[in-house]
C-alpha cells in the first residue's frame, strides 16, 4: 500500500489520528531516562490494570486493560508508573487545539485519538497526505510524542489504517484500494464485531472481511439479525456513511469500581451499586444533564463481562432512581454468588436539564428525593465530597472520625425512604 507523497489520496477526506502508547509516551517524555525501556502506566496494587504500555513492553505480550500483576510477570523488568490524568488531559488539549487549527471538523474519540474531515482544508493546506504528514511532524515537535495517521475515504477505513501502520506511521488507503485492503483483514477488524459476533461468523466459516463481503446479505441477516447483518455487509464493502461530528457532546456519564478482591456477597455489590449510582447522579447534576437510559456492567473473576440497560419512561438525575433501576438490572441477572471483580453504573441518553421536558408523577411530593440530593450537592461543595450520603454508604470504621452531621441533612436521605416520595 503506497504511503509516500505519490499515494493517491484523492477523495480521502477522513483522517484518523491516534497517539502511540499515549500515557506511556507522555511519561517517557517527562522522564527521558525511560526511553527505550518497557514502561507500564497503571495502578501497581494487586488489582491494578495497565492503562498504557510502551512498545518495548508490548513486545513481551503486555497490552492495555491487562491486570498489572500479569503484565509484570510477562515483563519483569518493566518500570511501573502511576497514571497522571491531569498531565495527559493537558497534552490532549494541546493536540486537539492543533487539529482544530486545521479544520473545525474534529471529532475526539478519547484523549488520544480523533477523526478529522480535511476536505475543506485542501486549498489552504494541501491534500490529505500532506496534512497528515504535517500533523505527525507538529505533534512530535510540540508534544514530543509520536502518532499514527490513517487516511481514507470513510471514517471506518481511516481508523483501520491508523491501527495497521502503528507505531509512528502513516497509511493512505486510496479509494480504489479500499476493497483490497479491507478484504484481507480478519472479521474482528470490522466496527461492531466483538467476541460474540466473531464467534458467530467463525461458525459460518467466515474469518476474513472478504468472506463476509461475498456472503449473501440474507444469510448474514439470518445469522446476525437484520440490523447487524446489513451493517457488517455494508462495512465489508467499505460503505460507511458516518460523517465527522465535531464537539461530540458527552453521550454518557458513569463510573465503575474494581473490588480490591473478588466479591460474592450481594449486599456488598448492592452497596457499591448505590455508591456508583449516587456518584453518577451527582455528575449528571453538575453537568446539567438528565439521563434516559441506565446501564450496569458486571465483570466476573474470569473477566467475562455483562452489560444490561433499561430505558426509563422519565429521564432522571436522581441517584435513588438510578440505583433502583441498577438494582433491578442486577437482580435480573439472577447471579448465584458469582465472584465479581468489577461493577459499573452508567447513565446514557443524556439531555440538558434546562431543555428537557419532565413527565410529572401523580401524587409525588412537592419536595422529593431530587431536592434532597441537591441539598447534598450543596453540602458537598461546602464540606467536601461525601459530606452527606445515604447511611448505607457510611464506612463503619471511619464514622466516628467524621464531622458531626452537617446542619440541614434532609430527612429523605435515609435509604429506608426508598422511593417514598413517589408513592401515592
Amino acid at each position, binding site marked *: 500500500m503506497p504511503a509516500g507523497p505519490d499515494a493517491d489520496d484523492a477523495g480521502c477526506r477522513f483522517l484518523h489520528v491516534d497517539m502511540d502508547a499515549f500515557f506511556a509516551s507522555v511519561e517517557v517524555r517527562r522522564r527521558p531516562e525511560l526511553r527505550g525501556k518497557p514502561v507500564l502506566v497503571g495502578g501497581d496494587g494487586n488489582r491494578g490494570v495497565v492503562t498504557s504500555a510502551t512498545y518495548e513492553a508490548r513486545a513481551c505480550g503486555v497490552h492495555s486493560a491487562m491486570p498489572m500483576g500479569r503484565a509484570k510477570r510477562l515483563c519483569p523488568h518493566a518500570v511501573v508508573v502511576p497514571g497522571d490524568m491531569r498531565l495527559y488531559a493537558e497534552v490532549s488539549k494541546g493536540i486537539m487545539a492543533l487539529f482544530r487549527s486545521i479544520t473545525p471538523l474534529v471529532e475526539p474519540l478519547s484523549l488520544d485519538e480523533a477523526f478529522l474531515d480535511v476536505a475543506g482544508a485542501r486549498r489552504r493546506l494541501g491534500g490529505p497526505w500532506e496534512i497528515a504528514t504535517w500533523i505527525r511532524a507538529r505533534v512530535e515537535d510540540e508534544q514530543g510524542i509520536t502518532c499514527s495517521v490513517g487516511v481514507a475515504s470513510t471514517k471506518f477505513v481511516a481508523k483501520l489504517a491508523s491501527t495497521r501502520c502503528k507505531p509512528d506511521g502513516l497509511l493512505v488507503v486510496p479509494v480504489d484500494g479500499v476493497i483490497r485492503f479491507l478484504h484481507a483483514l480478519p472479521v474482528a477488524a470490522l466496527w461492531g464485531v466483538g467476541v460474540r459476533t466473531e464467534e458467530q461468523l467463525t461458525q459460518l466459516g467466515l474469518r476474513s472481511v472478504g468472506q463476509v463481503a461475498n456472503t449473501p446479505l440474507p444469510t448474514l441477516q439470518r445469522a446476525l439479525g437484520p440490523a447487524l447483518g446489513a451493517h457488517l455487509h455494508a462495512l465489508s464493502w467499505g460503505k460507511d456513511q458516518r460523517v465527522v461530528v465535531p464537539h461530540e457532546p458527552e453521550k454518557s456519564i458513569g463510573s465503575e469500581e474494581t473490588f480490591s478482591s473478588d466479591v460474592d456477597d450481594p449486599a456488598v455489590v448492592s452497596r457499591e451499586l448505590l455508591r456508583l449510582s449516587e456518584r453518577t447522579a451527582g455528575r449528571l447534576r453538575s453537568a446539567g444533564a438528565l439521563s434516559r437510559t441506565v446501564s450496569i456492567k458486571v465483570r466476573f473473576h474470569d473477566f467475562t463481562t455483562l452489560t444490561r440497560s433499561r430505558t426509563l419512561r422519565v429521564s432522571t438525575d436522581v441517584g435513588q432512581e438510578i440505583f433502583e433501576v441498577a438494582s433491578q438490572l442486577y437482580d435480573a441477572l439472577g447471579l448465584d454468588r458469582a465472584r465479581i471483580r468489577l461493577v459499573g453504573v452508567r447513565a446514557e441518553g443524556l439531555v440538558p436539564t434546562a*431543555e428537557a421536558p419532565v413527565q410529572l408523577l401523580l401524587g409525588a411530593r412537592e419536595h422529593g428525593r431530587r431536592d434532597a440530593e441537591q441539598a447534598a450537592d450543596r453540602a458537598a461543595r461546602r464540606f467536601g465530597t461525601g459530606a452527606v450520603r445515604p447511611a448505607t454508604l457510611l464506612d463503619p470504621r471511619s464514622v466516628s472520625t467524621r464531622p458531626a452531621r452537617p446542619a440541614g441533612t434532609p430527612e429523605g436521605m435515609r435509604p429506608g425512604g426508598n422511593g417514598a416520595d413517589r408513592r401515592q
Partner: protein
Amino acid sequence: MKFRVEREVLADAVAWTAKSLPSRPPVPVLAGILLDLSSEPGSGGRAAGESLTVSGFDYEVSTQATIDVHAQSAGRALVSGRLLADITRSLPPHPVEVAVDGPRLTISCGSARFTLPTMPVEDYPSLPMMPTTAGVVASADFDTAVSQVAVAAGRDDTLPMLTGVRLEIDGDRLTLAATDRYRLAVREFGWTPEQSGRTAAVLIPARSLSEAAKTLTGGPEVTLALSSSGTGEGIMGFSSPNRKTTTRLLDAEFPKYRSLLPVESAATAEVRVAGFIEAVRRVALVADRGTPVRLSFGDEGLTLLAGGDDEGRAEEQIEADFAGDPLTIGFNPTFLLDGLSAVHTETVRMSFTTPNKPAVLTGVPAEGPGNEDYRYLIMPVRLPG
C-alpha cells in the same frame, strides 16, 4: 370420545380458550387444551353427554367454554392448544367430526383430515373452583367500563401493584380504578349484587380483566364471582352463559387514589373529541419519544404545538370553549390520546388547576348514558424554560 360439532362453534370456543394459553408453558401439558365430553349430566340442563367443555389453564388464568355437540361416546383428550386453534380456524365450512383413537385425536371436516398426538390427561392440573357468585353486571357496561379504566394500568412488572385494576364493591355500586402513576382512570357504575350492603375490594391483573370483559359479551349479563371470605381465596371468576374464566388476584396494595382526585379547578375547556384526537395525532408526528404536545388554551380556542427546531415543528388550532385564565400545559401525546378515546362522548371537558398539576378529563354531558362518573386524570409534562 367421539362427537360431531358445527365448525364455527368449535373454532370460536377453541380460539377463545387458546388466547389465554402461556406462550412459554412451565410444563408441557399447560400448552394443551382439554376437550371433555363427560358422561355426567351436562350443565345448564343439557342432556347427558351432549355438551363439550374446552378448557385452558396457565396457573394464572383459567378459561372454560361449553358448546353443544352431537356425542357418540364420552371421554377426554388433551392436545396442543395452538395447533388445535390453527386447525379449527382453517377448516372448511362443514360439520366437524372429532374422535380419539388410541394416543391420537383425529379431526375430519369435509375432505380434510388431521391426526394430532394427545398428551396424558392425568397430568393436567385441575382448574380452580369458581368462587361464589357476587352479582351480575350488564355485559356492555362492563366491557365499556373495563376498557375505559384498563388503559391507565401500568405495564411494568417491576411495579406489580400498578399492573392491576382495582375493583371496589359498595352495595349496588362498582368502582374500577387503575393508574400507572402518569394517569389515573376511575369509573363508577351500577350492578346487581347477590347480597345487598356488601363491600369488598380486590386487585385484578389488567390484562386478564380486559380479556374477560371483551370476550364475555355473548349474553346480556356477566356474572362476577368472588369468594365472600374477603381476600381469602385470591381468585376472581367471570362467566357468561357458555363461558367462564377465573384469574388469580394480585396480592399488592393499590395506591390510595381518592385523595388524588382534585376537588376544584381553576379553568375548564370543552372540546369536540373527534377533531381533538385527529389534531393530537397529527402534531404528535413530530414529537420525539418522551417529548410532549403543548396545549395552549385561550379566548381564541386551543392551539396544539409539538416538536422543535431540530426535529421539525407542528402547530394546529382547533375550537375550544375555554373558561379561565389563558393556560399552556404539556402532555405525553399517548397519555392524552388514551384519555380522549376513553371518555366515549362527543365532547370532552378538561379541568385544570395549574400547568404542573393533574388535569381531569370527563365526558360532556357528564350524566349521559355510559359516561356517568368516568374520570381520567392525566399528569402533565413540565415544560422547559
